[in-house]
């Protein structure tokens, strides 16, 4: 277990925790627009830290290079899709009346 492995494991555990936050945030909000904002953002961060942790475990290699490429592609596409889904939901008149805020 050299240093790279330990750092990688820490990042992976952090990524899993962020992903669980995303799931928790998903059920916390009932409004669609808040839900898409929270879950897609937290999901992207969770995925990012987790894949960086994976890259750490493999050190400097061809594998990590491909992982970095996947990170770039995902970081470009994820917000793009979330924006398009939210925009087309709004344009097609998807009003969501917030449930009475439970104190």
């Amino acid at each position, binding site marked *: 277990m050299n240093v790279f492995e330990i750092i990688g494991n820490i990042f992976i555990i952090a990524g*899993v925790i962020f992903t669980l936050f995303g*799931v928790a945030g998903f059920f916390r909000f009932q409004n669609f627009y808040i839900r898409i904002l929270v879950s897609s953002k937290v999901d992207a961060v969770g995925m990012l830290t*987790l894949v960086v942790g994976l890259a750490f475990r493999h050190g400097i290699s061809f594998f990590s290079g491909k992982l970095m490429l*996947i990170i770039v592609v995902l970081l470009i596409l994820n917000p793009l899709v979330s924006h398009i889904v939210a925009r087309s939901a709004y344009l097609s008149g998807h009003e969501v009346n917030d449930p009475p805020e439970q104190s």
Partner: protein
Amino acid sequence: MDLLWIVLWIMLACSFIYLWLIIRGPSIWDRLLGKNLIATKIIVMILIFASINDSAFLLDFAIIYTLSGFIGIIFIALFLAERKKRRNP
């Protein structure tokens, strides 16, 4: 059970939770959001599996799946927006 296997199972559990949301989701837009999140989870699972078996060719699958999956979602969303307009102009 190595750390990566545990993480793999956690990711699988998360995607099943999102799957339950897709079924329950009040509107079609929630379902689309659920599909998007499950797609990300699947990609992460592919990466973890590739890291476990140390097989670099699996990463190409993840890249292709990412691109095709997201393009699919984009056009589904655009179609749904148009469908609502055509129904009640």
